[in-house]
């Protein structure tokens, strides 16, 4: 038991140290700071999904929609309403949360692959809205002509617009707060009730848990953090691509969770880092990178179903 705690603590320390020092070493491993920011953003998305997938045991395949809603919410706020990064993030996240809260009651009765099918199909609505509502969303060309704004803290201004390192730390702070919140929730009685549902829904029900309502709450929480990740992603690119809502994107979030290890808190972060780096490399190395991404899916499923952290954990217990 003590050993396990020690290992958890050291994993936490390593993750923190790596993320905090990233701007100082990323250039030396042949990469660039924006990719580091991209990894942190995708890690937040994958961890948000894992709240539902790994900790509540609900098979959601439609999370790209909420990622995209956060992105459009933020981009459109900054472009049309108010040139403020903070307000943009807030609006984007709330839009995603609201959509999830409304759609939730229609899907929480469903289970297993049927839940997966309905969530991924529902996600397409938002893709088509973004795609068709040309005048406002930019349609197929995406939402352009806006930029993230510097953060005014009153006593000083942080120029996240031009300083990529400052923006990285800005994203990292939000990531840290969001992840700490999720960790806090998962360690609470509420979080344990969600884990109980994952472990054995029938048992949970016969403990007096209103399972559907708990799944709804977990769904809304997960989608809210997902929208936050989408919001940060739009700020990173100063652009929103309607394809970030397309159904194929949902699968990549799931594979990040699985590749890293769904049963481990940091697993999705590891998965996101590997996936983003791999995709970045493949897309510059070969025009057929999509096939290789598909191959990664197949290999993970057939040979590494427990993910990277799962392998570590198994080694440690042996």
């Amino acid at each position: 038991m003590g050993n396990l705690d020690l290992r958890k603590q050291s994993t936490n320390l390593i993750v923190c140290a790596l993320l905090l020092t990233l701007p100082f070493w990323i250039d030396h491993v042949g990469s660039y700071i924006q990719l580091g920011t991209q990894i942190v953003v995708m890690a937040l998305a994958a961890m948000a999904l894992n709240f539902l997938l790994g900790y509540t045991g609900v098979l959601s395949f439609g999370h790209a929609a909420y990622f995209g809603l956060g992105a459009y919410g933020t981009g459109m706020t900054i472009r049309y309403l108010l040139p403020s990064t903070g307000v943009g993030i807030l609006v984007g996240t709330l839009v995603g949360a609201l959509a999830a809260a409304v759609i939730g009651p229609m899907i929480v009765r469903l289970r297993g692959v049927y839940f997966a099918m309905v969530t991924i199909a529902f996600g397409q609505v938002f893709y088509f809205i973004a795609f068709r509502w040309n005048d406002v969303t930019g349609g197929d060309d995406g939402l352009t002509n806006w930029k993230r704004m510097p953060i005014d803290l009153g006593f000083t201004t942080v120029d996240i617009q031009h300083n990529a390192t400052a923006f990285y730390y800005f994203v990292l702070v939000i990531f840290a707060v969001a992840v700490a919140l999720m960790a806090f929730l998962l360690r609470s009685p509420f979080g344990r009730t969600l884990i109980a549902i994952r472990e054995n829904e029938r048992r949970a029900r016969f403990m007096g848990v209103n399972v559907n309502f708990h799944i709804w709450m977990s769904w809304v929480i997960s989608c809210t953090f997902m929208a936050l990740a989408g919001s940060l992603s739009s700020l990173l690119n100063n652009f929103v691509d309607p394809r970030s809502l397309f159904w194929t994107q949902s699968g990549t979030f799931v594979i990040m969770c699985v590749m890293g290890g769904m049963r481990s808190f940091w697993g999705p972060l590891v998965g996101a880092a590997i996936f983003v780096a791999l995709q970045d490399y493949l897309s510059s190395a070969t025009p057929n990178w999509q096939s290789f991404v598909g191959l990664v899916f197949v290999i993970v499923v057939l040979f590494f179903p427990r993910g990277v952290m799962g392998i570590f954990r198994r080694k440690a217990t042996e």
Partner: protein
Amino acid sequence: MSFLTVENISKHFGSLVAVDGVTMRVEKGECRAIIGPNGAGKTTFFNLITGMLPLTSGRVSLEGRDMAGIDPSHRVKLGMARTFQITEIFPELTVRENIRIPVEIAAGLRFSPWMPRAMEGPIRDRIDQLLDEGGLHRIADRLAGELSHGDQRACEIMMALALNPRLLLLDEPTAGMGDDETYAIARLIRRIHAEQHMTIVLIEHDMRVVFNLADRITVLAEGRPLAEGTPAEITANEKVQAAYLGGAA
């Protein structure tokens, strides 16, 4: 008024009649065993009482309160806790966590995003108490999925007890166990019944367990009630001997 009243309940699956007009009254503090040959409708009968299946006709009431339209999770809040024929636990969690979850739920914390400081002590004590009563202390930090069948069953019973039920329904608690495990579980149930005056309804195949534990016995056959009485009366009942005990020999 009886504690648990089952009045003339039936369950039809299409043309199949699984439970056919069963009436049963269980008094507070009683330990009632339900026996009957395979396919007698015992588990279906249980599922009707706990609300897992809707009734075709009849009425179930707990302390005079009609259970119609009350879903299973709500019945738990009204004091009904059950175990299943195939043990239902949280396999990837430790025994302590398995017990902790129902303790927290019973304390009304299922929506609580943090642990109130004042509750920490009482909840820890309650978990330890349940681990003690169930003889689970030695395995408290092991994963429930890795335990022996008997230990898993003990864990499941203590999880049900953690909910502070007033009625405990046990579906074949000793099914598939060797003599030692069966004895341990029977002793556990007897202690719960004796020390906490818990009202218990249990389905059981092992007649030694039944005659050792039950105050009264209800015999079901082909979905119908065949007989009811004290263990002595049931042993002497010719109908039961012919249809059940005799048939089994």
